């Protein structure tokens, strides 16, 4: 099991995935491999290609109210390319997932948690909506990991 927090810590709510990963590290870091990544597609595929299970957390810009938590099962559904906040490198999370699927190296269990962001402007402070969502998403992910462990 690999847990990946994705984001840019200098783009306000875009840091949500990274902050969640750091908080999870304090809670379950001794039991789960947790890494932070920028979201560059090639590096993402490289990180997950030999894993059996991945949970990826990133900020989302889908039009839902800020702080909304999304859960997508990438192993059974395609990820729309406009789901995530824009990538500054054209080849971000959604494309990496779909390319990895085509290359047949997408981990068989692949859950994406998205936190709907409010502001993606330059800054190092999360919006109150995203801040409120953090404990909720952390509990959800901890349960997800427990469920996965019991399945195995």
């Amino acid at each position: 099991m690999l847990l990946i927090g994705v984001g840019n810590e200098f783009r306000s709510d875009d840091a949500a995935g990274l902050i969640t990963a750091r908080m999870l590290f304090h809670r379950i870091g001794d039991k789960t491999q947790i890494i932070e990544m920028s979201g560059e597609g090639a590096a993402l595929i490289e990180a997950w290609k030999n894993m059996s299970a991945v949970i990826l957390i990133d900020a989302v810009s889908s039009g839902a109210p800020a702080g909304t938590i999304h859960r997508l099962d990438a192993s059974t559904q395609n990820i729309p390319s406009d789901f995530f906040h824009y990538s500054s490198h054209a080849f971000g999370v959604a494309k990496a997932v779909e390319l990895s699927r085509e290359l047949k190296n997408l981990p068989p269990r692949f859950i994406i948690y998205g936190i709907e962001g409010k502001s993606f402007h330059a800054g190092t402070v999360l919006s109150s909506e995203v801040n409120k969502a953090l404990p909720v998403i952390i509990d959800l992910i901890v349960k997800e990991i427990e469920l996965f462990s019991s399945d195995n």
Partner: protein
Amino acid sequence: MKSRTIKVDYLARVEGEGGLFVKIKNRTVVDVIFNIFEPPRFFEAFLRGRNFTEAPDITARICGICPVAYQMSSVHAMEYALGVKVDGQLRALRRLLYCGEWIESHILHIYLLHAPDFLGYEDAIRMAKDYPDAVKNALRLKKIGNELMILLGGREIHPINVKVGGFYKVPAKKELENHLDDLKWARDAAIDTVKLVSTFNFPDFEQDYEFVALRHPDEYPLCEGRLVSNKGVDIPIPDYEKHFEERHVEHSTSLHSVIRARGAYHVGPLARYNLNFDRLPQSAQQAARDVKLATPCNNPFKSIIVRAVETVFACEEAIRIINEYEMPEHPAIEIQPRAGVGYGCSEAPRGTLYHRYRIDDKGKITDAKIVPPTSQNQKIIESDLWEFVQKNMALSNEKLTWLCEQAVRNYDPCISCSCHFLKLHIERE
């Protein structure tokens, strides 16, 4: 009560939207507008009042795909202003970092953005179905470039280890040597890439371009040299603004760069290759000869082959630098601020990037000018489209749209334009 509206047409972010408008009247092209979003104007304002030491980290934020280019142009400009010359192994490490960026940027463009155009796929994901091994090799190549950026820059996007005067931290020789096997594989994979992309079908299209690039006495250009062209430009970097100017055009938020004396010009891989073929290492020259790539090459669609040749160069240069590396005693040279004006040019993967800064005696930036390659190529992109559409008038709108997008991507203009944000509108009367 007076109403007040605040409207933001484009947010100041790195990613931009591109649009293309072509108007045809009586089978004649009467208008072509290519408009892309150019954020560096705002960065020039951000830089005012900041310390000279902050320029490489602030400007690196302009682009997620070529941050090293911004860092290199800014540190060279600052060092010029401060009367400092970074040489020896620190200079070599800068070239090595730049090689990492060239590898990852060129491979992204070749395989994931441009090759699908030539092979008739909507995107690389669909292309991967039929070319899985090529795409896997591309990802491995890109990773090898990323890893050089992580090692020397601290991370693959927006590196944080470059400073005016050198680096914050330099690697031990062993850390670099760990990358040699990968780089040798990458060089061979890049040679295979040259072969692969040379088999694509290229539209029969050439223009009499004025190519502009850096030229160095001994090296294929990355950070230093004189600015030269095939039509007579041969100037030191500080003379850039005497010969080149940015002009406002009504339809664009981005300024159009022109050579004052002649107008549009072409920067990027094709320009570098045509002006510096003799500076390429033997393996890269041979790779080009093996696929009969002409020198000079005036077909912009063949820039995809040139990018592959330049990837061979970047791998070869990285191997050379690592083999000759000796860890410097200090990661940077000490610098004291002084008032002055500095100029820097470097060769970003997509073309020449010019920076100019004025700093005061405390080292505070009082003025900044940044001319990115995309701004410089914008006018020539419009010129290409004008000629290309005129020549291919008989094609359906669908086919013409596809080819026009491909023609824009020849210039790898900016990341969002190179991907799926370009909207083409053809109006026929």
